[in-house]
């Protein structure tokens, strides 16, 4: 990180080496500003050194401590800087504790400088000084240098003034830029009653911006504080004297924990505001557009505010009052309502309203002898930003212990309403229950045989052991996790698919006579071929050629879609050419036809010749069957 302005960085880059900025924490803009100012001083000094106006000698180590301000208000924070010129300790010095001051290490920075061949270094350690009380403080500064020697700097003094609220006159004059006001909603409250105290921040109209608001002290003895929040959409503007203030309301929930006179405050806070810059001269009209303002940290304080806390009245206090204070409504349900002895019934009580919901408890139920009551569970849902409104749902599981139970009894919840100063009791009617004796339906025989327990009475012990081992099984994987079982489930699907395909093909065949004929002829030819081979083997020439001629007719008739008996050698050529038959096929066909004709007059006698004819026929048939009709 270059801490020099760009023009100086360029000029010094060969002479001054900024080694590093080791900053473990966030340094505020004020610290940064001071840091830069100091750097300019250093840079000026170094420039002089570079010009030869200072002697080129190494400086002895020195150690100084300084505060950015000598006086601060309680709630503000000062910055302590320890500077080492020359040898510096490796670790931040441990400062002695000062009662009333908090000293927190912020970070460090170091620079190695090389000026005219002379090396030197500057190391600074920064601490935040936070006072916890007002007064005069002296901070002793002792450190150990790099050589282990103890070195000390001049102690620094800090004056912390007590935060105080501005006077009424100052407030009413409109001179205060920012002030706080603390107010109770009413002068009397009850112990345990949650109230919302208003803490208003007044910002004068010339405040251009503000931020970093931080409450530094919220003393409220005798109260239990809640979470402080800003009341949404309730900012307003008020006129004080001749100035207009913006009021930012904060809500401080407080609950009185004891009776008597209680006091809250003074609350203290810090904030940063941006005010118009005072030293920029020029036309005021122009300034209002171009004045960027100056930031200012302001300490704020309120006056203390008191309230009287009253004890809860003893008169008319309900017996089942458990300390709930506020204003509530209640709904209660129980279910299921038709159960067996020992079965769980869920009782759900929902209490809604404003008050300390976390403190709400169910009344004592130890008198409910007929129920086993398990510890309840509670869930609180907050519906407002202050955490004072919402609903608490308490659920408890109860089990009826005998069949004589007929209802979940009437349920009451009492609370004290501080608004009217009276106790109120909310009552939910009894819930009818139907409770059956345990195991009455499936187990009368068992009870009669082995336990002799009277019917409709809850069992006093477990049922006895079984004498028969029964069928033994091995610990097996469930069927649904066995691959064989899962694979088996595909069988009916496959069977159905096979049937479906078969049906489709059968329907196809039934609706296509030509296909049917094609298959019949194919079957006939297949059978005929075996007959031909048989006739050839037996050298039965007449039967062979009669069969051959018939097969040729059938096959050609099927291909040409005409009656087989109508097929002659003369018809074949022209029509087969149209189907795309090859000349070789046609030639073979002619030859076969001629052989058939010749056989009537000069039958072929040898077996080999017949076998050769059968083979030729088989080949021709194959070629014919491949033609697309």
């Amino acid at each position, binding site marked *: 990180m270059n801490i020099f302005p760009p023009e100086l960085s360029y000029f010094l880059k060969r002479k001054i080496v900024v080694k590093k900025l080791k900053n473990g924490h966030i340094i505020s803009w004020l610290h940064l500003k001071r840091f830069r100012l100091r750097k300019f001083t250093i840079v000026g000094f170094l420039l002089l050194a570079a010009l030869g106006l200072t002697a080129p000698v190494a400086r002895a180590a020195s150690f100084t401590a300084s505060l950015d301000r000598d006086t601060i208000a309680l709630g503000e924070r000062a910055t302590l800087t320890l500077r080492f010129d020359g040898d510096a300790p490796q670790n931040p010095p441990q400062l002695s504790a000062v009662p009333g001051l908090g000293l927190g290490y912020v970070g460090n920075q170091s620079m190695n400088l090389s000026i005219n061949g002379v090396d030197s270094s500057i190391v600074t350690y920064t601490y935040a000084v936070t006072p916890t009380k007002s007064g005069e403080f002296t901070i002793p500064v002792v450190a150990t240098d790099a050589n282990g020697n103890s070195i000390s700097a001049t102690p620094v003094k800090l004056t912390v003034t007590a935060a105080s609220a501005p006077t009424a006159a100052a407030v009413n004059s409109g001179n205060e830029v920012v002030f706080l006001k603390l107010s109770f909603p009413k002068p009397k409250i009850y112990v345990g009653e949650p109230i919302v105290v208003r803490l208003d921040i007044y910002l004068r109209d010339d405040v251009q911006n503000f931020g970093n608001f931080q409450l530094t002290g919220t003393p409220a003895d005798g109260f239990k504080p809640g979470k402080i929040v800003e009341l949404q959409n309730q900012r307003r503007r008020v006129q004080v004297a001749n100035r207009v203030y913006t009021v930012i309301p904060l809500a401080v929930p407080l609950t009185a924990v004891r009776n008597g006179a209680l006091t809250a405050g003074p609350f203290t806070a810090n904030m940063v505001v941006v005010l118009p810059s005072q030293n920029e001269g020029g036309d005021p009209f122009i300034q209002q557009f171009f004045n960027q303002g100056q930031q200012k940290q302001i300490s704020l304080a309120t006056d203390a505010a008191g309230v009287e806390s009253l004890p809860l009245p003893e008169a008319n206090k309900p017996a089942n009052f458990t300390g709930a204070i506020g204003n509530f409504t209640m709904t209660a349900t129980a279910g299921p309502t038709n159960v067996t002895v020992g079965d*769980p019934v869920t009782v759900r009580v929902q209490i809604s309203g404003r008050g300390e919901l976390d403190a709400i408890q169910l009344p004592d139920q130890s008198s409910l002898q007929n129920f086993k009551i398990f510890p309840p569970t509670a869930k609180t849902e907050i519906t407002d930003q202050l955490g004072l409104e919402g609903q608490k749902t308490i659920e408890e599981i109860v089990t009826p212990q005998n069949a004589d139970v007929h209802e979940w009894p009437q349920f009451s919840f009492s609370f004290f309403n501080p608004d009217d100063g009276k106790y109120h009791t909310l009552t939910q009617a009894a819930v009818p229950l139907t409770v059956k004796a345990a195991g009455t339906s499936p187990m009368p025989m068992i009870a009669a045989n082995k336990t002799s327990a009277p019917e409709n009475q809850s069992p006093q012990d477990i049922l006895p052991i079984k004498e028969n081992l029964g*069928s033994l099984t091995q610990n097996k994987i469930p069927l649904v996790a066995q691959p064989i079982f899962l694979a088996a489930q595909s069988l009916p699907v496959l069977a*159905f698919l096979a049937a479906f395909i078969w049906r489709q093909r059968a329907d196809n065949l039934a609706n296509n006579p030509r296909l049917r004929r094609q298959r019949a002829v194919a079957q006939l030819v297949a059978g005929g071929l075996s007959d031909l081979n048989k006739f050839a083997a037996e050298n039965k020439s007449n039967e062979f050629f009669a069969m051959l001629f018939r097969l040729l007719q059938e096959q050609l008739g099927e291909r040409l879609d005409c009656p087989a008996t109508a097929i002659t050698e003369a018809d074949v050529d022209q029509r087969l050419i149209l189907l795309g038959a090859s000349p070789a096929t046609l030639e073979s066909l002619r030859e076969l036809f001629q052989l058939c004709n010749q056989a009537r007059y000069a039958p072929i006698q040898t077996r080999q010749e017949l076998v050769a004819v059968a083979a030729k026929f088989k080949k021709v048939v194959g070629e014919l069957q491949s033609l697309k009709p």
Partner: protein
Amino acid sequence: MKNLFASLCVLLFAGNIFAADVATDFSGANELYAKGKFAEAASTYEKILQTGATSPALLFNCGNAEFKSGHLGKAIAAYRQAELISPRDAELRANLAFVRNQVQGAALHENRWQNWIGSLTLNEGALLAAVFFWALFALLAVRQIRPALAPKLRSATQLAVVAAIFSGAVLALQAANHFNLAVAVVTSAETTARSGPFDEAQSAFTAHDGAELQVLDRHDDWVQVVNGAGKIGWLSRKQVEVLPGA
């Protein structure tokens, strides 16, 4: 062939011998129980179970012996395992309910549908679904082979479709319950559930012997559980017995 026959004989006789041993041990454990030696009886039942043999009666008796020995968690675990095999056993359900009543803390509540489908074992559900599935596709196949029968089979087919879908849904729920909704039963006297799976983690809640907790996750020797009150924590596996869902 002779070798195969010999092997089958060996297996058959070995099975008989094994069953005879189990029956003998079972009777011995029953005698110990009758004499009031519940811890010894429980130990004997558990030894039988460690051999891999199991039966509803064996688990039932083991649960009884554990309960009489004061081990509510082990008793509930045994009863729950028996319930997986024989979910409609009235004696078993009565004893399980009785022991559950002795357990401290909020009980784990099962949904109505979980109770309902829990009346069938997972295998029974699988077989039932398979039967309806096969019947449905058999009917569909018959309708393809004999279209003339289709009008007569229409009602039966519709019924089979509904039954197959319903039984399939039941089986899916059963399987989801069995494999995904594991239950951890606390078997130590009192155990502290931790906010993380290590001994140094903060305490989340305390569970007592016999508490049944829903298992949410597993990590090494730890199981993440939620109790009946909705509190979540991690328990060491040494302190619980993890069982499949019903």
